[in-house]
Each structure stands twice: as C-alpha cells, then as structure tokens.
C-alpha cells in the first residue's frame, strides 16, 4: 500500500485514505459551446498513457477532502511529488 503525501495536510498517509481522480491539468474549457466536436472529444476522452512520469489527480477523500496533483512514475509506481491544485505543472 503506497504512502501518499497530501500537500494540504502536509502528511504522508496510507493509500486507503485517497481516491484516484484521473489525469491532471486537463482544464474544463471556459466556453464548451465554442468547441468543435473533435476538440470536445479530445477534452472529454483523450488521455495520455505515459510509461514513466504521469501527472494525475488524487483526492484526500478520507482526510481533508481536497483534490491535489501528483507526479507518479507508472513503471516504478513511485510518487515523485505532490502539489496543490492550481499550482503549475511540475
């Protein structure tokens, strides 16, 4: 069971307390109606599936309840870093 650092609680806690929430840094378009079908499809469905560094979202569901971002290596399953939502991509 992985230990995950919550950047809001500033604590490493067991994976049990967290919920995975998909790839990070995919902002909802400000005006979805202005998007073409292809652009909307890309936003809705198309995700990176990298071997290695993956930017992803987690929620400290059984803790502070906050969503945050993380960089995890999909090969070693090790977290490189976690940071607060809204902070620039690391």
């Amino acid at each position, binding site marked *: *069971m*992985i230990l995950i650092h919550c950047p809001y609680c500033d604590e490493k806690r067991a994976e049990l307390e967290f919920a995975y929430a998909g790839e990070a840094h995919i*902002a909802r378009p400000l*005006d979805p*109606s202005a998007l073409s079908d292809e652009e*909307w499809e890309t936003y*809705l469905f198309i995700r990176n599936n990298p071997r290695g560094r993956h930017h992803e979202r987690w*929620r400290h569901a059984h803790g502070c309840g*906050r*969503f945050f971002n993380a960089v995890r290596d999909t090969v070693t399953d090790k977290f490189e870093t976690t940071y607060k939502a809204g902070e620039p991509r690391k």
Partner: protein
Amino acid sequence: MTGYRLPTGGRINRAAPLTFSFDGTSFAGFEGDTLASALLASGVKLFGRSFKYHRPRGLVGSGSEEPNALISVTRGPGRFTPNLRATNVDLYQGMEATSQNRWPSLKFDFGAINDRLGMFFPAGFYNKTFMWPRSFWEKLYEPAIRRMAGLGQAPTDVDPDHYAATYAHCDVLIIGAGPAGIDAALEAAATNKRIILIDEQDELGGGALSDPTLWPWLERSLKALAASPNVQVLARTTAFGYFHDNFIGAVERFTDHLPGIPHGPREKLWRIRAAEVILAQGAIERPLVFEGNDTPGVMLASAAKVFALRYGVAVGQSVALMASHDSGWNDAFAMAGAGVGIAAIIDVRDVVNEALLTKANGLGINVRLGHSVIGVRGRLGVKAISVARNDGTAVSDITCDALLMAGGWTPTVHLWSHSKGSLAWRDDLGAFVPDVPNENVRCVGACAGTWNFGAGVVVDVLPTPKDPARLKAFVDFQNDVTAKDIKLAVREGFRSIEHIKRYTTNGMATDQGKTSNLNGLQIASTALNKPVTDIGLTTFRPPYTPQTFGALAGHAKGALFQPTRKTNIDSWAEEQGAVFELVAQWRRARYFPKAGEDMLAAVNRECRMVRSSVGIFDASTLGKIEVVGPDAAEFLNRMYTNPWKALEPGRCRYGLLLKEDGFITDDGVSARLAPDRFHLTTTTGGAARVLNLMEDYLQTEWPDLNVWLTSTSEHYAVIALQGPNARKVLEPLVEGIDLSAEAFPHMAIREGTICGIPTRLFRVSFTGELGYEINVPSAYGRTLWERIMAEGARYDITPYGTETMHVLRAEKGFIIVGQDTDGTVTPFDAGLDWAVGKKKADFVGKRSLARPDIVAPGRKQLVGLLTDDPNMVLEEGAQIVADPNQPVPMKMIGHVTSSYWSETLGRSIAMALVEGGHSKMGQDIFVPMPGKTHVAKVSSMMFYDAEGARLNV
C-alpha cells in the same frame, strides 16, 4: 529409506511423547517434532502422490520448500485444512492427518496409471489436447482431470474459527531469524530503534537449529533479544508479501500447533510498515536432475541433516550422497557424527577440496569423483542406486535406502523480488542474488549470496549414458515437470522463460518453484544455447507460501463484512415485522406484511391506502447536501441542467445532474431556503458520488466561487406523508406553517415546528398524491413517526416500504436513476427534455448533448410498455425484440427496466429502454421470456393522472 529415531540428539523433547494418526494408522512422536520428522522416524517413506502422474513421492525438503509432502489435517467440521506441507506442521497430541491425491490408498493408487501412460503427458499437454470442442472441456475433460490430478479436497463447511488483524509500525523489520537475522537484530537492538523480528518456524534459529555447536550462542542471543524492550519477536509468523513503501503482510499462527479445539483467534494478519527492512531469509538447497530423482528416499542433503541434528531422525540406515557442491559433504559428515550410516559420496566433479577427501577417508566413506547417479531402484522407496562415470562407463550399483542431493544453493529472493529489487546473476554461485534495492531494504546472510557452504559446480542434468528422450528426471516435483518437458518446449519454439514456465507449468505449483526455478532455467539455457542472463527469471508474486483465506478476510465476514446503515426509524419497522432490503449500505423496509399476506398482497394494500387515504414512508436514506454561500445559486446553475438562479426562497425544483459526457448520473428535488442556502437531495446510493463530483468542480474548475458543501444525509430523518389525507394528518401537529394549498403549494418548502421539533417541511411528491416530506433532526425520527402514526390512525394511516414506493412512482412515470438509466441515458433519452434549461449557456454535460452520437437517431429511449395480457408482469431485465420470428441470435432492441403489477390500474405496467422508443408509440414490441414470447405496446410512461390533478389540491 527406512528412517528411524537416533538414540540421542536433536531438539525434540523425548520426555514428552505424542501419538497421532496418518491415514488412520496410529504413530508416535515427540514434542518438538513436525509431522514429517515424526513419520520419518516411524519408518514412513511415502508421503504423497504427484499431481499429474500420481507417482509415489517422499520428502524432499525439511521446511517451506517441500514440494511433495502435502497433507491434510482435520480437527472437526469446518476445521479441515488441505495442502499443508508436512515439514511445516508442528505435531500435537491426537493430530489426525491424511495424505492427498490418491485413491483408494497411498500405496495402491489407481491414478498411477497416468504414470504408465506418461508418454502422453508432455509439455503443453493440456493446451494441445483439450482445446476443442469447448463443451467437452467443461463437461468431460475438466471434471475428469480434477478427479485424477490435483491437490487436497477443498473444505466444504463454514470455517468456525476467527481471525485477528492488526497494524504495526517499526524502525527495523527483520524477516528470518537464522544466524544472520539474529545478528542483525542484536545489532539493531543496541540502538533505540523499534524492532520487529519475525520467523516462520516454531523456534527461532533457522539453520542454527541443526548445528548443535551453535546452540549455546543461540540461547544467549535469544535471551538478549527477549531482554531488549525495543525488540518484538514473532515466531510462527510468515511474511508472505512485500508491498509498496515497506509495507509487509505477515500471518501469525496461534492455534494450529495446539491439541483439541483451542480458544482464541486461529491466526492474525499483521500489516507492518517499516522504515527499514532487513531480509534474512536464507537459501534453499537445489536438487539434482537425474533419472529417478523423485523416488521416495531421494532428498536434499541439507534436509537430511536437519532431520538428523534438529529432530534426531536418521533418514535411512544406509545413506548415499550425490553432490555437485561441498555443502553436501559437510552435511554427510555432520550426519555421520550423529550416528547416521553413510554408504557413499558420489560427486560429479573430478576434483574436490583435499580436506573433504581426507575427512571422508577418515570416516571410512566410499567416495566416487567424476561420477553421477544414473538410476534409482525401488518404486515406493530407494533400494539401490546405479552410478556411472561421467563418460557413461563403469556402471555399478550401490545399495542404500536413501539418497541425498547437494546441487548448490538458491538464495531466497522472493520478498526482495516482491519489493521490485533487481537481481544480479553470479556465475560462481549459479544463482541470482539481490542487486539494486527499490525500497529501503537490504539482504543479509545466505539470501544475499554470502555463505560459508563451500564451493560447487552448476549442472543442469547429470551426465548419463541413457537416452535423454526417455529420461524421467524431474525438475518440478509438485507439477511433475521433467527436463525433457523443458527441452520440448524449447524445441517447439518457446524462447522466453515466462512462456516456458506457463507451457510446462514449471514453477507454477503451490511452492512457486522454490526448488525448481533455477534448475529449469539452467536446462532452458543449455537448450537455447544462451546464457541464463539472456533468458531471465520468472516473476515472484505474493504469497511466499499459501495462506488461509480466513487470515486475509480477518474480521470482515458475516455481519462485519460491511456496516449496515440504519435510520432512526428502522427499529420501529423491525418491531412491525417489516421485510427489509439493502439499498447501497442502507437497510430499508421493503414492505410491511400483515398476517397471511405475501409481498404482492401487502404491496397492493399499501398502494390502495396511499391512493385512497394516506401512507407514511421512511425516506431518511435520501442523500442530502447543504449548499451555502453567496455563489450557491450560480454553482447549482452550473452543475444542474435546469436554471436555479431565479428560484425563489421557499420553492423547490427537480434537479437533473449529468456528468460531462451528457449522461444522467443523479437526480433529486432541492429547495432554496434563503438566497445563499440550498437543501439538496440526491438518490440514496448517489450521495457520496454527487458530493465528490460537486467538490471536484468547486475545488478545481471554479475555485473562485464562494460556496460550501456539507453532507447532511445523516443529520435529518425524513418522513414522507403521501395521500389525499396527508394534509389533514399534519394540520394538528404543525406550528408556524400555513398548510393551505394557497399558502403552501406543491414544490415548496417551509420551516417551522412539528410536535415541537424544528422541521424543514417539503411539499413534494414521488407518488403523484398530495404529499409532504418532513425533515427533522435524525434523533427525533422515530418519536415523530409514532406521533404521526397516532394522529393518522383515524385515516387508517398505512406504513409502506420501498416496493410500494417503486410501484407508485412507476404509475406516474418517475424514473429511478440507476434502474431506469444505466450511465448511457441522456435527458432526451429519458424523456426529461423539460428539465434541461434550453437558454442556459453552459452546465455540466451540456456540450456533450450536441455530440454526433448523442443526437443520432436510433438511440435507446425510455418508454412505457403495456402488455397485451394485462395480467402479465414482465421480468425486469428481459430483452426486447422487434421481430419474434427471427432466427437466434435475435437482434435486441432494448430491455425492460421496471415492471410491476399496478393495483391502482388493475393491470401490469412496465418501463423499458427501446431503440427509437419515442417514435414507436402505439407499436407492438416483443419480449421473449422462458416459455413464451409476450406482446406489448409502447406507451407513455405517465400511466396515471397524467394531468397531475391529484397533486395540486
């Protein structure tokens, strides 16, 4: 092999004799014996039959590596444990053990005919033979193979034991309490670190237990550890898996070694998080591969030494050794010192250390260098061995009743590999050793490849003049894989060791190849003419040894499997004899049968009473979210499909929630209490999901909105009062709220008190009748319920359950998200266009409603169904076809989502998702069900009071 108890020696307690039975025969042993050592001492040679060929098998090892001696132990109903290694079973008074995989008896086994037909079971036999036809596999091959091949019987009774579980944290976790592990523990004990030392055996000491010269050191060391307050020692505890971030799973066994039916938990699952892990798991000796190496009486030299020096058991009267490694010689010398007769030492090497020869000569042992064993005589036990020079000449026989194998050592890197540490190949050891760690872990002692066992050579198959194609030289004893199976797999084109493993099943038995992986690899390496490092090692996965399901389940079984959520009113329903159902984790009253009523009769009565007078329903399980803040209306406007900003305080609105893909995910009626405060309701099962979705948007997409979300699902008890007399029941109880139709219309909310209890009173209806949902603080739920029941008595107020609620809502065409929708249904598909704000620029999911496949014709749409036979209630989930005369497989155009007997209408009603359903109004569709295909007409879902006259009163 005719083993016997040596007159002296060993760590057994000769003052404490024990009796036990094996296959119904009574035997004697001592406290401190394992089942294996006690049987061996009693002269038993035959411990089991092999998996595929049913060949007679004896002990190979003395511990967890044992592949052959799988036995079952029973201590009464539900306490039957199959597939235990006899070498790991601590003996107790009265033990009842049985052998496995034989019929009718271990000595005469009918299944051994497989062995005579052995030529028909080459590598990949199952894959090749039983591929086709599929029905033969299910009906004939698999049941037959299961009867003939296999392990012990699965227990059939419920396990009456209970199992504990705990978490532990430490600075240093040491796994393995042999000399290396104990030294590491002593060193760490001198610091102020918290240390846990665990070992799978009943006694700590590992290899030191079979070396009497180390016993004084062992005793001193264990005393020192026991005196260290910072050291916790766990014996009989197996670390079975190494998971992320130094998280180790271990099972401690409390009772399996005790006689009778002991009190307390049987086992305990330890979940240990360690800052540092030290692996001291030792090494396992490797068998040699030659014709007849699976005959009972052929075993590892190290195991024979353990039996002699730890348990005081000679494995035979006259014991021969076949070695490719010095360690076997030293084991033979140690056994000779304990009084075991050594018949001969055969070594495949032409030259060995002079000191070994001198010592052998001194003991008068017959030595043959540059020789190999080429055959074993005796089917149920070794009678003699055939030996030849490595060039195949000078064949001679040596009489003996046991043969030891010393093929070198394999470091136990299982847990290291679980932790994703890398391995390095060492040619001098012919083994993989730990290389680069992936966690904060290190290996010490033999599992790191550092040992003082001497030197040796690695031989894949011992030299023999016999035809290799006819050789029965076993690599994996438990799965009956021979050297020629592996060679055949290579000839047939397999290159990767992972494929060779799966094709031959080498290393795939319950022992995970502890004695076979490296020999298999060497044979594949020779056959492929590639170095071992180019072939790779197969992956080790938890568990290190098989563990009980009980230990993994722990307390999470039966009523404790998951919590049952109950409302404050639940106890009343239980006292009334309600029949319950689980909805998500909530226990909900399904119906309230009166004497002699079945479900249909009860539901019909409940429906009649709601429609004709008044019914009362516990709706407390509804999800509730309090949305507060200056931007609350703006937030809801962005989340829900319909407009919220213009909703006046005191009014309610039906809210439809989509996900960004445009599909319905939840719905519910919500109320505006104040400009900055909303009381949301969600479906019973959707509460947590909806809150998570809303938090996600609030925190990450619109952090500028000033809104707070609070789950209030469990803060309110909700009593739904529904029916034409609902207002009359409420009037005498409510204070501070004008209940008149003009002052308090449908879809409104008022705050006041009821029976003196503060309430949020909703005027809403999920039944189509005049209705109220009374929210009060949870703790008042039952009190209020009983007051309303008393007040409603003169109207025959009738409690109803979820089943009646479902029927009444279906009569009105109200959907249940998750029953009538399945995650692919849009508002238009569900006929809820009216709930979508056409003028809104944006809301979650809006853009998707214009996607090409969402606007394409032919989507499945929610419609009503009326069967031609009004008494026919369709099965929910039944498939729908347009043409009942098509050949099978027919084209399905949809399925029934809801279906009930409607007492109000005196006929059946149903809802269904049907392709292009909205344009099929009035048309016939067909529902094939067992026995008959039913005809139904597509209709509106509004089966009752379509104009809503009953609501607006």
